[in-house]
């Protein structure tokens, strides 16, 4: 234990890490938006990431009103 190594390498950005792991860059951008939103203290959207509500759902909501 207690190696002499000094960990001085600057840590890469989320984009660089995503690229290294082979994560699609649009997916990385989406994750970055999610984390920025959480960091700002916003509620996480109840709509799953990247999944838009269908037109049918919107129509039902309009009728309900």
């Amino acid at each position, binding site marked *: *234990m207690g190696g002499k*190594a000094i960990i001085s390498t600057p840590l890469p950005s989320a984009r660089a890490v995503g690229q290294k792991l082979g994560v699609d860059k649009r*997916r990385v951008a989406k994750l970055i938006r*999610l*984390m920025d939103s959480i960091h700002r203290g916003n509620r*996480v959207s109840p709509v799953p990431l990247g*999944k838009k509500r269908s037109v049918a759902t919107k129509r039902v909501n309009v009728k309900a009103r």
Partner: protein
Amino acid sequence: LTPRATIEIPGGARRLDRILGLIRECRHSFHDLSRVEIDRRHPPTPRFNMPFELGLTVALAMTRGRRHNWYVFEAKSRRLNKSLSDLDGTDPYIHGGEPRRLLLALTNALVRSRHQPTIAQLEQIYAELRRAARALKRELQTESLFEARPFHDLVVAATRSAQNTLGTLSR
């Protein structure tokens, strides 16, 4: 540091080959032996994977030319002396099974790192990552985050959270 795990490597390579490959790739490894417990499913058996992987790491670190730093974590003090007396003389980092103490233990293990976040900052990242994990589970419709895709997503999310919380990372 970029977290790596065996689960993220696709393909039909033998699990053991994948583990060895990852250990060779990484300069640091963290071995938490606190979960070496009896599995309740029949037949009840202890899980030996983690001590086995620690053994592989120690062997590789002693034989390979490049330096590899390994760190042992345990929930209870003195348990390591009993369960793995071959490591007598090695001081494990004790976390008591609590996230806060684990973060504290990690800061002690990585005391030589250029980045020295406070416990409050690490707790902030942990809280943000918990929220992200819930969102990811919902989106990917999975119960476990210990699969290739959710794990990659979590690593990217954690890096971003760290960037947002610690100014030093983006410099």
